[in-house]
């Protein structure tokens, strides 16, 4: 039926009509795109003219991405304006007479206006963006990325346009279309934000950070889809990226089908002001109220404005603020209080009940605080910047996580309070306690491995927890001894050793990097207390930079590190110091800063920064054989 409609003559004529109706938008958008292209051209000319000696490709690539992002923003802004304008004929009794009497079906009217309006936005957007992508194609990968961004923009336009068209068929006035489109785009995201904020404010380990990794927040915000696709594409969040792409297409199809149905069932007389689909403004009012109440409620409870920051104080503030917000929103929507106040109030009451119910569930009843993923279900886990894929290491990480969750439950009130430190008052904060803690648990106290956990699971799902807010690790609630032992086990693993010192094992990397400055052998001498409190002296010697020497050195260190059963001692002050002839503590270190060959940019640095204890016999003999070390084990020629 729809395909037949597309081929009939009235569709073609009405399509042209709708396209021409957008000529102001086409002209303005085209002018802005041309100005943007001129700006890009000027910047490219500047970059070449002043013989930019930084990363030219990277800069051009960034320029391309920035320009295309601005074009996407423009396209979505014009999508909004165009959709409102194109479908405004539905909201004027006289234009309804004109279009309704034309020899065309409602389906034809819907399709022709939708596609005509969308084309009016898509043509200047695609044309301008393609020119930008071609202008910046000299940067490797920029053209491909540019084309993908244009595609994201186009499907974003389709989703946003179909959504606004569907809303237009459900509303009696263009003002309602504007209000509902804007509020619908933010209200669902707002509810997710409220619930997530609540979890982040109350549940140990949950942070707002992980919210931005989930497409859930923008599930019903078609005007944000494009930017979300960009974000996931550039941050290589594959699962979220695929999900959002599929969702955008699905959403556009759903909105198209809903719009088509609304067009067929639409009561033309509703141009007189009645809103057909009553649930839409009612829902938006409810959601808007909930978001206002929720955010203020969380803020008030967290700041301890009333009560002790428990759920009760949240609910108190939530109810007051959300009801005021509801009254204001209802007044705005209904231009007074008479229209549909009771149904709206009922909807608000139901939404409030659901949100409060969910709040209780999420913060007390779902075991989110104690949840630790099953190691078997985890493909990799990141603790801060360190990633582990080895099953044994994944298991160790989950055990560390488990110890933390047990510590939280053991010492703290349940359900939790709002605010970051409520209920966590047992820290190693006295000076003597603090020093003793550091000495006893050097790995833990040095924060050597981060206190954030990101588990990657099947189908791209992730679980994130972050315990930094609880003053981890200086929190007496945790079994620090057990964590220290698990950390030792973790850093002693081959995987950790290899990841930490990548250049030692990755031959391909070795061929691509070169020392940024002369490699250095350092001997750090810690003077005993009576001589200088906490002072240290460094003795440095430059090492040869030639590849043959360095490769030999890398191999020797690699062999020693891999064989080292107490590698963790190389990372912290575990009393693994050497004692020199004067009885002073010393450490021997190799420090090499590496950068990619033939590149002058200041990014992509690698480093090899490792201690060489006496048990590293291969390294020490190598240094001896090259006459860098002379006496005993740790002395060197100066």
């Amino acid at each position, binding site marked *: 039926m729809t395909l037949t409609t597309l081929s009939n*003559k*009235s569709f*073609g*004529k*009405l399509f042209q*009509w709708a396209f021409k*109706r957008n000529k102001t938008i086409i002209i303005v958008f085209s002018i802005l795109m041309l100005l943007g292209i001129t700006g890009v051209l000027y910047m490219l000319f500047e970059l070449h003219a002043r013989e930019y000696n930084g990363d030219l490709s990277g800069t051009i690539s960034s320029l391309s991405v920035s320009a295309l992002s601005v074009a996407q923003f423009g396209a979505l802004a014009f999508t909004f304006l165009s959709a409102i304008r194109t479908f405004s004929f539905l909201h*004027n009794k*006289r*234009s*309804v*007479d*004109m279009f*309704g*009497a*034309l*020899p*065309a*079906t*409602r389906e*034809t009217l819907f399709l022709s206006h939708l596609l005509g309006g969308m084309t009016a936005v898509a043509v200047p957007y695609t044309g301008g963006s393609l020119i930008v992508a071609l202008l910046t194609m000299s940067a490797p990968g920029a053209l491909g990325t540019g084309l993908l961004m244009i595609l994201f923009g186009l499907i974003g336009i389709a989703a946003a346009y179909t959504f606004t068209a569907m809303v237009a068929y459900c509303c009696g006035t263009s003002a309602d279309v504007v209000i509902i489109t804007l509020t619908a785009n933010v209200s669902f995201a707002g509810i997710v934000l409220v619930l997530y904020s609540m979890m982040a404010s109350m549940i140990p380990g949950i942070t707002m950070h992980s919210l931005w990794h989930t497409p859930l927040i923008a599930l019903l915000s078609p005007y944000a889809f494009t930017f979300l696709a960009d974000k996931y594409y550039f941050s290589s969040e594959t699962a979220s990226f695929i999900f959002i792409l599929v969702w955008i297409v699905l959403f556009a199809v759903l909105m198209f089908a809903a719009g088509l149905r609304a067009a067929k069932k639409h*009561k*033309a*007389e509703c141009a*007189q002001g*009645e809103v057909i689909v009553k649930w839409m403004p009612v829902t938006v009012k409810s959601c808007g109220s909930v978001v206002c109440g929720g955010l203020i409620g969380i803020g008030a409870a967290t700041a301890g404005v009333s009560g002790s920051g428990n759920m009760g104080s949240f609910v108190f503030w939530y109810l007051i603020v959300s009801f005021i917000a509801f009254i204001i929103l209802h007044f705005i929507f209904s231009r007074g209080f008479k229209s549909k106040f009771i149904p709206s109030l009922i909807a608000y009451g139901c939404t409030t009940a659901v949100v409060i119910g969910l709040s209780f569930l999420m913060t007390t009843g779902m075991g989110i605080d104690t949840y630790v993923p099953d190691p078997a279900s985890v493909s990799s886990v990141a603790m801060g910047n360190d990633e582990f894929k080895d099953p044994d290491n994944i298991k160790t990480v989950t055990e560390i996580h488990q110890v933390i969750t047990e510590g939280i439950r053991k010492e703290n009130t349940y359900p939790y309070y709002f605010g970051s430190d409520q209920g966590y008052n047992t820290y190693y904060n006295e000076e003597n306690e603090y020093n003793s803690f550091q000495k006893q648990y050097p790995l833990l106290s040095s924060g050597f491995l981060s206190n954030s956990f990101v588990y990657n699971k099947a189908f791209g799902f992730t679980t994130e927890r972050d315990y930094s807010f609880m003053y981890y690790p200086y929190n007496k609630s945790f079994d620090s001894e057990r964590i220290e032992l698990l950390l030792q086990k973790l850093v002693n693993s081959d995987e950790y050793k290899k990841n930490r010192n990548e250049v030692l094992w990755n031959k391909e990397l070795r061929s691509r990097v070169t020392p940024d400055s002369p490699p250095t052998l350092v001997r750090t001498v810690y003077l005993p207390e009576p001589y200088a409190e906490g002072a240290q002296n460094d003795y440095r010697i430059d090492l040869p930079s030639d590849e043959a020497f360095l490769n030999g050195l890398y191999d020797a260190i690699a062999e020693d590190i891999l064989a080292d059963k107490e590698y963790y001692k190389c990372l912290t002050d575990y009393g693994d110091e050497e004692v020199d002839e004067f009885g002073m503590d010393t450490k021997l270190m190799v420090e090499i800063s590496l950068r990619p060959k033939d590149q002058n940019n200041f990014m992509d640095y690698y480093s090899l920064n490792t201690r060489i204890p006496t048990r590293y016999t291969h390294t020490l003999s190598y240094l001896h054989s090259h006459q860098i070390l002379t006496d005993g084990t740790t002395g060197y020629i100066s």
Partner: protein
Amino acid sequence: MLEIKNITKKFGDNVPLDNLSFSIPTGSVFGLIGSNGSGKSTLLRIISGVYQSDGGTVEIDGMPTFENPVVKEQCFFISDFPYFYNDSTVENLASLYRDLYSSWDQEKYIALSEMFPINTKDKIMHMSKGMQRQAALILALAANPKYILLDEIFDGLDPVVRQLIKKLLMGMVAENGTTVIISSHNLRELEDVCDHIGLIHRGGVIMEKELDEAKLGIHRLQVVFREEPEEETLSQMNVVNIRRQGKMMTLTVKGNAEEIEKAVSALEPVYMEMLPLTLEEVFISEMEAVGYDINNIIK
């Protein structure tokens, strides 16, 4: 033949059309008259396919009009306030209608454009109310439809243009067998062009017949009696309205003219004269019969 079968239309609790039925013969000029809010415009919108009825159907030659482009192509509707975009001109609207109406007559369009005092390249929104109606009429007549639906078309037009429009419409009826349906409160103008009238009130049809037949079915008599007959005697004659001016009585009576004359003569009047009724008087009389008269409104 345009058939309106049991049409019902509701706007919430308001029911402007309630089970309304009548038919309009092909090639006629049908005057749709009625009180304010009686549902005339709503009926025209249902016929032209703008509104969907809540019950019943409108059929042209046996085919429903709603969502039927083939049938809608035979109709052209000009609403009481024709709509134009800010940048609409007669020319660009003609380009739209030209492709949508296969019956579009370009020569006729050119001829009409020259006939009406309108520059087809001017923006219609900048024109006066009357000029806007003329613009809409140029497009409607050039589309050459089988059915032209006109809502309050005579509003804002000067007498000369009104005459011109009536002439053009009559010409289309004569030459092409076009059916014209005009809804208007200007009964004087309707009287000139209509051969059929339909009177609707509160969603129902009060009268639907040929204009002459309508006029023949109701009569006005001026009579002077030596002694005024009793009310009961007059009520036996289906008197719709009585007005008194001294001894002179003006009676509006429904029925056959000869029978009425005979009945009044039997009362031995001193003076009696049968007067012709205008459409407006027919309208008022019919509406008074259903209780819609000025006395009822004032009280």
